[in-house]
């Protein structure tokens, strides 16, 4: 059974994971759209990594030109639908809204964008190519996540022949498998992939690009390569007893419930790491039936890497937080139950956590989810010829996405260490524009 089929069969998710931000109705959307001041050189547009012309698409909602609104969004951001749901708008467009300084009520840009995109995907769901003429040159995009999809769509719209190589049997990357279900459903992510497929982008699914020989073959066949491979596996805790069936990592956990492989989680769940992914995993655990979910962090909420609104959401869902705790070992009791041995920590002046001797204590658990960040995909990145890395991240020229190998471009998490979908989309688009310029010259 393919991944899509598995997901389609798993229909209970909608009930368990209702939309965090429900869609706007037509009347509400028009009222909200009319509230937008239509700023010149709007700060929301500048704050958006893909520079969506926000006032323009909002005013088109106000005039009832929904088709124009959707195309305005997609012109800047081909993944406008998923971004409307998953973007941390509070620190992006809505955070920049001038109404914060007016009546403290920023425009609900994310929900308005979703309103326009929902209409688009209910309808013809197809964008026009930018260029009428097809070009012969071929570009490979490695990885089927947001960065590659964006790069592929932009290049295809400009007439190039693009192939996306994805190791899974469905494209979408973290959009499809890594975003909390109450933010973005797998099916919604799939619609975007279908739309991009409709542009004429070729997808080679279930194809792993692993070794040097694969890469040499690609370099040979394609005029340019875009690397959008994201990050590798979750970092391990590095403590004794970690290899245990009750210990899973957050990315795998989220993928397993979204793809339907896991339908429930029981008992006491401990989540190590107070980042956005840790919070996604903790909330999902509650929705999937866990009796008690606790997030552990060796520092405090002041240093937490999760966004404040994610923290608030987790607390509302009933997730507990325990600060200044460091796991040191995983043990099993005689009756087979699991214990996480922890130590208390102390913050130094520069907010580093140090353990306090003699403070060891056990925390019983049924499942432990590690969420302390994904490691770079070094096993692949090392094989690229002449591509400079820095701390496991691909080094690029920011404006063009070009690596130290002039034929290879990169973007997304493998470059930035793990930002948002919209950052990956922006990276992919900038790289596509640069690739297009470079190939035009060589034509």
């Amino acid at each position, binding site marked *: 059974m393919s991944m899509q089929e598995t997901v389609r069969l798993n229909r209970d998710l909608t009930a368990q994971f209702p939309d965090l931000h429900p869609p706007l109705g037509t009347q509400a959307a028009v009222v909200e759209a009319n509230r937008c*001041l239509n700023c010149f*050189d709007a700060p929301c547009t500048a704050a958006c*990594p893909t520079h969506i012309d926000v006032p323009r698409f909002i005013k088109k909602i106000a005039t009832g030109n929904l088709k124009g609104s959707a195309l305005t969004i997609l012109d800047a951001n081909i993944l406008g639908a998923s971004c409307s749901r998953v973007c941390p708008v509070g620190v992006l467009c809505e955070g920049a809204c001038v109404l914060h300084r007016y009546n403290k009520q920023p425009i609900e840009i994310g929900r308005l964008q979703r309103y326009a995109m929902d209409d688009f995907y209910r309808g013809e769901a197809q964008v026009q190519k930018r260029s009428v003429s097809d070009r012969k040159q071929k570009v490979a995009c490695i990885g089927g996540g947001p960065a590659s999809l964006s790069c592929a769509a932009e290049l295809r719209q400009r007439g190039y022949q693009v192939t996306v190589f994805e190791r899974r049997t469905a494209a979408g990357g973290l959009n499809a498998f890594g975003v909390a279900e109450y933010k973005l459903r797998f099916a919604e992510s799939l619609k975007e992939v279908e739309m991009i497929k409709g542009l004429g982008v070729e997808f080679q699914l279930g194809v792993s690009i692993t070794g040097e020989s694969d890469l040499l073959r690609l370099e040979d066949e394609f005029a340019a390569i875009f690397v959008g491979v994201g990050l590798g596996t979750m970092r391990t805790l590095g403590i004794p007893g970690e290899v245990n069936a009750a210990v899973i990592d957050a990315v795998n956990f989220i993928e397993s419930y979204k793809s339907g492989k896991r339908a429930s989680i029981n008992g006491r769940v401990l989540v190590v790491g107070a980042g956005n992914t840790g919070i996604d995993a903790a909330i999902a655990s509650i929705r999937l039936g866990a009796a008690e979910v606790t997030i552990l962090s060796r520092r405090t909420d002041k240093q937490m890497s999760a966004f404040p609104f994610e923290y608030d959401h987790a607390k509302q869902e009933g997730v507990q937080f325990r600060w200044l705790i460091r796991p040191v070992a995983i043990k099993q009791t005689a009756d087979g139950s699991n214990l996480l041995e922890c130590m208390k920590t102390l913050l130094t002046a520069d907010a580093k956590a140090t353990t306090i001797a003699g403070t060891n204590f056990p925390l019983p658990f049924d499942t432990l989810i590690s969420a302390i960040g994904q490691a770079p995909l070094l096993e692949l990145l090392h094989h690229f010829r002449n591509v400079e890395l820095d701390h496991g991240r691909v080094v690029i020229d920011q404006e063009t996405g070009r690596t130290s190998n002039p034929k290879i471009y990169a973007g997304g998490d493998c470059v*930035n260490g793990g930002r948002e979908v919209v950052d990956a989309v922006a990276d992919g688009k900038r790289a596509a524009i640069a690739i297009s310029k470079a190939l035009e010259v060589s034509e």
Partner: protein
Amino acid sequence: VISRADAPDLSLLFAGKIASPNPFWLASAPPSNCGEQVMRAFDAGWGGAVWKTIGAQVANVSSRYSSIDWNGQRMMGLNNIELISDRPLEINLKEIAETKKRYPKHAIVASLMVESTRDAWHTIVRQAEDVGADGLELNFGCPHGMSERGMGSAVGQVPEYAELITGWVKEAARTPVIVKLTPNISDIREVARAAKRGGADALSAINTINSITGIDLDTLVPRPNVGGKSTHGGYCGPAVKPIALSMVQQIQSDPESCLPLSGIGGISDWRDAAEFILLGCSSLQVCTAVMHYGYRIVEDMIDGLKNWMAEKGFSRLEDFRGLSLGNTTEWKHLDLNYKIVARINESKCIGCSLCYIACWDGAHQCIHLDRATEGPRTQSTPAMIEAASRQSIATTPIPKLDNMRSNEESPGTPLARIPRVDEQECVGCNLCNLVCPVDGCITMEEVSTGLPYESWQQRAESGTTNEKSV
């Protein structure tokens, strides 16, 4: 309605004879269609009512109104193709009598329209006065339907007819005769003067304006759609207030037109009311606002007007009636040496840059976004500024990656987004002040030119109109 012992007195005696506890009257329209309605309106606080026009026999169509919505607000302007009262004359007369009997202190004016014969007018005047109407309003303004039959605006657009019929009415009338003027004419004073010559005791203005509010873009039929066809209607509501105020000012500033005036046209709240009175109106007639929200709106009209009067030290309506007429003149008398410039209050600016784009595209290119640049950038066009912004690389601020502190208070407007006015180039047109969404952020301030008052008329008289002003 809350009333206080020392509250300003809103009562009036219109045209010297029609007593009313306050200046707020229902205009002749659907809200004054029957006795039951008018009595409820009086209970709500309305001082008077001009009864829905009686006289000629009519039939009405179904689908009668259409409106203009603006930015999500309903009924900025209302259009109707309804005719005068379609109820039997005897019923209307009976209900006028009953209402007047139960509300003797309130003003009831009968609005009249009949075919253009002396007998018909004499008859209707007698009928209305016999049932106790305090005054008569001659409907010379209805612009749709009735005008096709030689009534309404067909009379009001021809000064001779208006004068003639006013004269016929005056032959029979014992109560004040108010001529209601149509705005659908080049110069409203022509008919106002004719009415005055015909002996009218008062005027009311304005009636509705010819209008087609819009077209259904699916059926391609204008609104309102009467079985696939439409026709022009009469336009009223907030959208027409400026036109009404201008016509009121024209009438009241013209000695040959000037009579006691009942102001009509988009009056929706006490501020509108005060403005009509400041231009010389005595009573005020309201329709659209009542059709939108009901009779209850009169409470704030009375309350707000009283509070404003008390604040300004006016104890009676006469204390401020017409005060703004003296502040209105012809363009040729305005001071060419008076100069104001726009000033932006930086602490209030929210950074929308609407003043900037308005000035560049709609005014005189003297507002610039160059506070954060080295030296002035008066040649940077909007397109250049937008292009630079689109080229910028923005990323999502991630707490872990960007070492940022969460829960930061949102900072004030960045200096780069606070526009700067080039006061040397500013012509004081007010546009930036008008588009600015923040109260008190952009102020228009007088700067001295050091020159005495000088008008175009003076220049014309001294032959200096070709010289460039300083």
